[in-house]
């Protein structure tokens, strides 16, 4: 873990140092138009049926957009590493949370009773996933 406090002192030498870094206007605009372009792209690609790839595509585009926002608008690229660690660790924990929960859910899918009010089984395979079965 970075020792931010002493770091800041040694880095600047003087306590009242300048620490603001205004972003140039061209960069703000460039990022904005990139984001806008990516939005058009994602709407455009939704017109085509890409099957299971569709979700992958749209998530990749969304992640690029999110990355731009975080890196530039939230100026994380110029920020203290600790802040970056904080935000990325949160993503790791989200992944952990979703990962385990979904890993579990994936396994018991076939045991679900989609119409729980039904009379109990005459013993046997569940009528799970009515929809899949009717296909």
């Amino acid at each position, binding site marked *: 873990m970075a020792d931010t406090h002493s770091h800041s002192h040694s880095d600047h030498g003087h306590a009242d140092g300048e620490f603001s870094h205004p972003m140039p206007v061209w960069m703000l605009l460039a990022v904005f138009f990139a984001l806008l372009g990516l939005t058009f792209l994602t709407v455009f690609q939704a017109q085509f049926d890409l099957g299971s790839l569709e979700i992958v595509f749209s998530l990749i585009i969304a992640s690029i957009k999110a990355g731009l926002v975080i890196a530039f608008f939230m100026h994380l690229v110029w920020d203290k590493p600790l802040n970056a660690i904080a935000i990325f660790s949160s993503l790791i924990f989200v992944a952990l949370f979703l990962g385990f929960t979904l890993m579990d859910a994936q396994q018991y899918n076939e045991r*679900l009773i989609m119409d729980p009010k039904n009379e*109990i*089984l005459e013993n046997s395979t569940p009528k799970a996933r009515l929809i899949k079965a009717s296909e």
Partner: protein
Amino acid sequence: MNFTFLADEAAGFWFPPAASTFAEQVDFLYMAILWISILFFVPIVIAMLYFMVKFRQRPGYKGSPEALHNTPLEITWTVVPTFIVVWIFWEGMIGYLDMARMPDDTVDVAVTAVKWNWAFKYKQNGAESTVLYLPVNKDIKLTMQSRDVLHSFFVPAFRAKRDVVPGRYHYMWFHPTKEGVYDLFCTEYCGDNHSTMITKVEVLSEEKYAAKLAELVKEPEDIVERGKWLYERKACKGCHYAGADGAKGPGPSYNGSWGKQVPLADGREVKFDENYVREAILNPGAAHRKGYETASAMPSYKGQLKDEQIDALIAFIQSLETAGAPAK
């Protein structure tokens, strides 16, 4: 006061009777962990007491203020416990996989958990019961379903437990090894009368088991008797008492209402008659009785009971008024 710990003859100090193949495995691991724990715990406590006395602050004694550090020692007390817990995990997993792996040739029983009763249905001949009858020395497979909230099926003597979650099927198996009568508990909190959601498991010899199943499918001929028979098997009994003493259960008592005007939660009054009872069985939310607003909701029996069975139940409730009451 009775301080007999060994009230149950078959039980040891720690365990309930061991009546399934799982018991040996679980009890072995339990005792192994217990001894490992004692092996750690006793030296820790002895060291602690010894240091307390030996290094206590007293006139004329001054210990060292320097922090100690001993790398080999620290590595030892990190690595040794690691190996031990890996072994414990491994043994636990083996035991679990044994419980999870369903054998092929099983005696199948369907289990329905509903507040606060267990209902069992035997695949063999469709018999139903509220006490679980099992043949000894057979692999038993349970297919479990809950009709309302979470429950958990637990037979301490079998060392077997499985939650029953509404909305999905749960399977479990075990292999009873000893004839006898054992407790069956619900161990997942399920509302007001959670602690009364207890029934028995009777492990019978093969002949007795067959005879029991045959006996179970026989519905009584008499309509009132049949109603009572259903009352005891269809999970009415847990909430609606029928005793003459008018004791109140979680739901309104069956006794003493027939033909009378009863107040409803919304202020109306209805006559307690055939129509009302039928409605209350099929659509329990429609006419909530006054005074039971905070009681847990009764599930609908739509599709659970045939028309004639409802008639029998009605006849049974009616009979409580005319012919004195059976015990609750």
